[in-house]
């Protein structure tokens, strides 16, 4: 029989994961969408990654590691699913229309912005997604992607510059 402390710990854990996940899930799914075509696949990736992460960490202090886990699960999925998925992901990287970040209630100007995000190079887009919609620091982004903090920061600046240029009136 569980003693009171164990029960309280379980309850705390339960509440913690719900609180953390509710905050992080939209950004995580958006991040995972970079490797797959559908939201359903992205949600599968996030589910597996979050469960794997939470089982060992039980808090999200190390956000870089959480995103690294999402990335690893996504890449594992691609390897497992081999040729078909690889073709899909390659297509999604090469074809601007393939990556469709899903945003709520976009107006016309936001639609243009979303289109410009789609046209960003993959390595800039993933830094942008981590920074803007997941509030990671450059150090955390660097840790998650296995790059230096400075590289993360410069990719972010390149992404913003490219978006700004893309959205300038012709």
């Amino acid at each position, binding site marked *: 029989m569980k003693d009171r402390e164990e029960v309280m710990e*379980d309850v705390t*854990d*339960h509440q913690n*994961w*719900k609180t953390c*996940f*509710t905050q992080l*899930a*939209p*950004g995580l*799914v*958006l991040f995972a969408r970079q490797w797959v075509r559908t*939201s359903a696949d992205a*949600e599968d990736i*996030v*589910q597996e990654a*979050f*469960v794997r992460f*939470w*089982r060992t960490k039980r808090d999200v202090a190390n956000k870089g590691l959480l995103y690294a886990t999402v990335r690893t699960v996504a890449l594992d999925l691609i390897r497992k699913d081999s040729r078909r998925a690889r073709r899909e992901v390659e297509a999604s990287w090469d074809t601007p229309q393939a990556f469709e*970040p*899903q*945003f*709520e*209630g*976009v107006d016309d*100007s*936001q639609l243009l*912005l*979303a289109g410009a*995000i789609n046209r960003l190079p993959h390595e800039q887009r993933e830094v*942008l997604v981590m920074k*803007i*919609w997941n509030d990671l620091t450059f150090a955390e982004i660097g840790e998650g992607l296995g790059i230096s903090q400075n590289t993360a920061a410069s990719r972010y*600046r390149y992404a*913003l*510059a490219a*978006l*700004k240029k893309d*959205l300038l009136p012709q």
Partner: protein
Amino acid sequence: MNDFSDIEKELRSLRPVRPSAWLFQGVARQLEKSSATAAPAEEKIIRPHWFRFGGLSLGSALAAAAAIFILARLDPFTVERHGPRTAKATPVPAAAAVSSAQFIPDGATRVVYHTQNEGLIFPQGADEPVRRVRSRTKETLQWRNPKTGASLRVTYPSEEVRLIPVSGQ
């Protein structure tokens, strides 16, 4: 000064679509399942069914087998008490030499049930690559008491890694 504050503001105004309820349910289900069936890492190793006995029982079995084996090996002293050590020249019949508690090795089998070619590796200092082949086996040692007909059998898993030199293609 940040030249991109305006574009950053616009980006932040985009809100990602909320994930489906299925995702939350799936995570909850898996976390509950994992907390209910939390097993030590050692238990997560997938073994053939007959390997699934505890380390303690394996240790006990091996210790018992070793003890019996040592007793069997020590038995010549017992024989010495009853007669001269002439076994080398004219061995006494085995049945006469053994006591009722003596087990003698009766056989050993080794069954390879899985072999995996792990590809070529380049060992340090070697000129040529070698192929690493990992075999999983089940080894069985058997002792028998010829007087009483009792037998003792110990089976244990083992793993062997062989490095096979690879000649030119």
